[in-house]
């Protein structure tokens, strides 16, 4: 015998763990400690048989924490104190004395904690936690019902298994419903209130400032930045445009919004269409394949230099469609503000100026000067490096003439400064370069380690031309093309695909997809009868098939086997033929034969009884005999009527 209370206590602990685990690492130290202490307390009290925390103590602790976190609440900081408070409350409930109401509170708090975790992380692990939590809560709730009816109830192991299996079947059985509800629950087009939206993952993302020399080394973080569903493109085109930095400030480059309108989209160039699923980030820029001409599916503002900025920080994940021209040139009909794009930092080292001067002195057009500078970079023997970076007061000078090693920011900013000093308008572009193509999902994965900066040069008559000075590093291709292979990579690939699909199907599901699904279903139904629509009608057909199967099973149960059917049909015919004889369920066939005096009924009864009451099935021959008799009987009835009719007319 197992006490229901024991099982409930264990399940309450499991539920609490499942609810707070995804939230745990996003909490402050105090709730983390309180939660762990509560766990230890529960286990120890259960072990030693000591009474749990009860009465006023629990109330006082709850009150203190509530007050503490209530002070932290504000319009901007809502989720975090709430999450912390949730876990504290949950801990106190777990440690406290439990009456049925308390158990329910534990389940609710766990569910809320899981819900709160979605404000911090949108990872696919959520689904796993949710499934386990539902299972645990389902079994708990059912057992709690038993507990409420009788708090001292014990069940046998077998009984407990019965209860638990039915309870566990509930979440499983509700899976299709969950899917249905998820699909059809009304989604608003825009969030009504913003303040509840999650703060977003604390990932650095693309900064709107490039400042080479500010750090001795840069980390290589492989966390994803975005996934873009796209066809496979040549690697040289994989520049993901983020933000344009057009103004030098000290050693850094920052962005100044410029007035003006973007030029018309290029003609005669193949446009690449992509759907981008970015990870949540604090940065406001929408990243798209260079050069993006339009971004749709999210409210955004477009600058003349093709930088897209999110209009508002809408909650959860985004998804947007982009159209890009990947040939590396942004055509511009109008000229540009040359003075603006030739502005130099306040302090440029003499060596840089003289190098620029030497390029400018030889004269020629902007494009000639550009190729001259490229020639210099090619022959300068610069190396790409992420450690031991120049950190002096003038890092560009140090990079170009002393260390000759640096990362893309050094390459790009020195290239741009040299160009401007040589009189060629140029600007920096921050974004990403490269991308792992996931053949499984058909998308590019861009990670934080692919962050990149390059330069756009304005050439009269052509427009802004993309130039990536980093390619002139002597070790460039080796550094940036290192690809991992083998089992680990495969696993990573699969895991990333799953994450992609999770984002694509669950996280970014919205009103738009809802509407599209309704339309698709509608058109699938419309095209049901057309041969061309067969593929799309697959699902309806499948459903229809299932319904038919269910119907057949029900029919078999209701109308019985073929033997039963033939007997019933026969009885019906006999009933019509001999209307004065009442046939009830308690009438036997032989009895019927005797009452009708009909030899055919007698024959039928003999065959049917001979099988039935010898405990065997009708043989095929016997069955066809029964059918023959029935048919002949039915036919004879017709004949009788016909004869009556003909004789009636002849009279």
């Amino acid at each position, binding site marked *: 015998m197992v006490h229901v209370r024991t099982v409930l206590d264990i399940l309450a602990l499991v539920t609490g763990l499942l609810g707070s685990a995804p939230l745990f690492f996003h909490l402050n130290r105090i709730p983390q400690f309180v939660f762990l202490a509560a766990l230890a307390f529960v286990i120890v009290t259960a072990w030693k048989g000591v009474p749990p925390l009860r009465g006023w103590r629990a109330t006082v602790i709850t009150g203190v924490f509530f007050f503490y976190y209530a002070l932290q609440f504000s319009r901007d900081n809502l989720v975090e104190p709430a999450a912390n408070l949730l876990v504290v409350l949950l801990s106190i409930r777990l440690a406290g004395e439990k009456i049925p109401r308390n158990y329910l509170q534990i389940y609710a708090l766990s*569910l809320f904690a899981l*819900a709160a975790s979605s404000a911090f992380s949108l990872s696919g692990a959520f689904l796993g936690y949710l499934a386990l939590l539902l299972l645990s809560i389902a079994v708990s709730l059912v057992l709690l019902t038993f507990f409420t*009816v009788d708090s001292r109830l014990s*069940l046998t192991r077998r009984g407990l298994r019965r*209860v638990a299996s*039915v309870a566990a079947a509930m979440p499983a059985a509700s899976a299709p*419903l969950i899917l249905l509800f*998820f699909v059809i629950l009304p989604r*608003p087009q825009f969030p*009504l209130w913003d303040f509840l939206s999650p703060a977003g993952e604390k990932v650095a993302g693309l900064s709107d400032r490039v400042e080479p020399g500010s750090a001795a080394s840069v980390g290589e973080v492989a966390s994803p930045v975005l996934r873009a569903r796209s066809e496979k493109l040549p690697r040289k085109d994989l520049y993901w445009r983020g933000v344009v930095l057009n103004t030098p400030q000290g050693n850094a480059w920052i962005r100044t919004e410029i007035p003006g309108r973007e030029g018309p989209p290029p003609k005669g160039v193949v446009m690449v269409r992509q759907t981008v699923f970015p990870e949540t980030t604090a940065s406001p820029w929408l990243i798209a394949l260079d050069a993006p001409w339009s971004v749709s599916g999210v409210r955004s503002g477009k600058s003349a230099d093709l930088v897209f900025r999110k209009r508002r920080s809408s909650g959860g994940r985004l998804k947007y469609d982009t159209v890009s021209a990947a040939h590396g040139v942004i055509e511009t009909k109008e000229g540009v503000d040359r003075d603006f794009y030739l502005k130099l930092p306040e302090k440029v080292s003499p060596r840089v100026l003289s190098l620029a001067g030497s390029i400018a002195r030889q004269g020629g057009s902007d494009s000639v000067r550009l190729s001259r500078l490229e020639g210099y970079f090619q022959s300068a023997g610069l190396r790409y490096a992420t450690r031991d970076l120049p950190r002096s007061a003038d890092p560009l000078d140090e990079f170009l003439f002393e260390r000759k090693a640096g990362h893309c920011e050094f390459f790009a900013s020195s290239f741009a400064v040299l160009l401007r000093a040589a009189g060629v308008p140029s600007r920096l572009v921050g974004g990403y370069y490269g991308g792992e193509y996931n053949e499984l999902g058909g998308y590019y994965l861009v990670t934080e380690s692919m962050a990149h900066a390059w330069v756009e040069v304005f050439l009269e008559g052509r427009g802004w031309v993309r130039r990536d000075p980093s390619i002139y590093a002597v070790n460039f291709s080796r550094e940036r093309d290192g690809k991992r292979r083998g089992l680990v990579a495969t696993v990573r690939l699969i895991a990333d695909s799953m994450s992609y699909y999770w984002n694509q199907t669950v996280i970014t599901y919205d009103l738009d997809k809802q509407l599209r699904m309704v339309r698709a279903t509608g058109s699938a139904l419309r095209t049901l009868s057309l041969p061309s629509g067969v593929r799309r009608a697959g699902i309806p057909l499948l459903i229809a098939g299932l319904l038919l199967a269910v119907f057949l099973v029900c029919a078999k149960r209701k109308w019985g086997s073929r033997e039963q059917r033939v007997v019933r049909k026969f009885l019906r015919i006999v009933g019509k033929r001999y209307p004065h004889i009442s046939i009830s369920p308690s009438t036997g066939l032989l009895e019927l034969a005797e009452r009708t005096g009909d030899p055919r009924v007698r024959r039928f009864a003999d065959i049917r009884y001979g099988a039935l009451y010898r405990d065997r099935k009708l043989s095929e021959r016997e069955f066809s005999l029964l059918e023959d008799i029935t048919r002949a009987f039915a036919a004879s009835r017709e004949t009788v009527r016909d004869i009556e009719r003909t004789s009636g007319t002849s009279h």
Partner: protein
Amino acid sequence: MGFAAVNTGNNLLFLIVSSLLGFMAVSGCLGWMNLRNLGVTVSLPDEIYDGKDTFVTVRLENRKRFLSVFLLRVHISGKDVRFPLVEKGCVESDAVTLVFRGRGSKLLEKATVSSPFPINFFVRRRSVSLSVPFTVFPSPRECPAVGGTGKKDARGDAFSRRKGFGGDVAAIRDYTASDPLKLIHWRLSARQGELKVKEITAPSEDPLIIDVLSLPGGGLEENLSCAAYLVNRSFRANRAVGLKVGSRLVRPDLSRTHRLRLLTELAVYGTR
């Protein structure tokens, strides 16, 4: 939580909300199925007395093919019987003490089955038709007026003790010419050398006929209670009893069915 989900458009909250909705729907369905395909039968004892505790056996049959029945409560005339678990295709029974008030023919029309399963938020209930007729006999009450055997007014007709052939051996005596051969006690005769015969009594004591309306005591109900007491006591004493109620006369007899018949007469007197 539903509000939060709609507002933020956060699909994970939507997922939780749809899980809860789905879960609720399934639990509702399960609760509904829990009360389907049940057979409730009640067996009442043959003797039910007005105002006395009566043991009633409630049988619950789970006719479902796949599911067990959980936490079922059968509610019959103000009392509950609980069945925590009845497995598929099984029958469980439990007894409950009921008290029926007022004599006469009655009908136990229906029982209500209810269950909070699977989740204790709602209690679903359904009534099950029983249609069990039963008769509540007057509560037997001792009447001081009837003690010994000689009181004519209480006993109605009385018959004297007599010889017969159905009872036990009452005495052994010498054989006389008028005795039938089969009464000879052969074993004893062989031992004593002369013929002895057995004397056998009539099968039972003198029958008693109770004239209900002329019993001493208060009103009709008291008389009926007293008569019920007398009927039961006489049967315990293995004495045939008859009954005279108003113009109805039931001949004395000695069987259980007869006793029930007498009690039924008392129960329904004046109620039809």
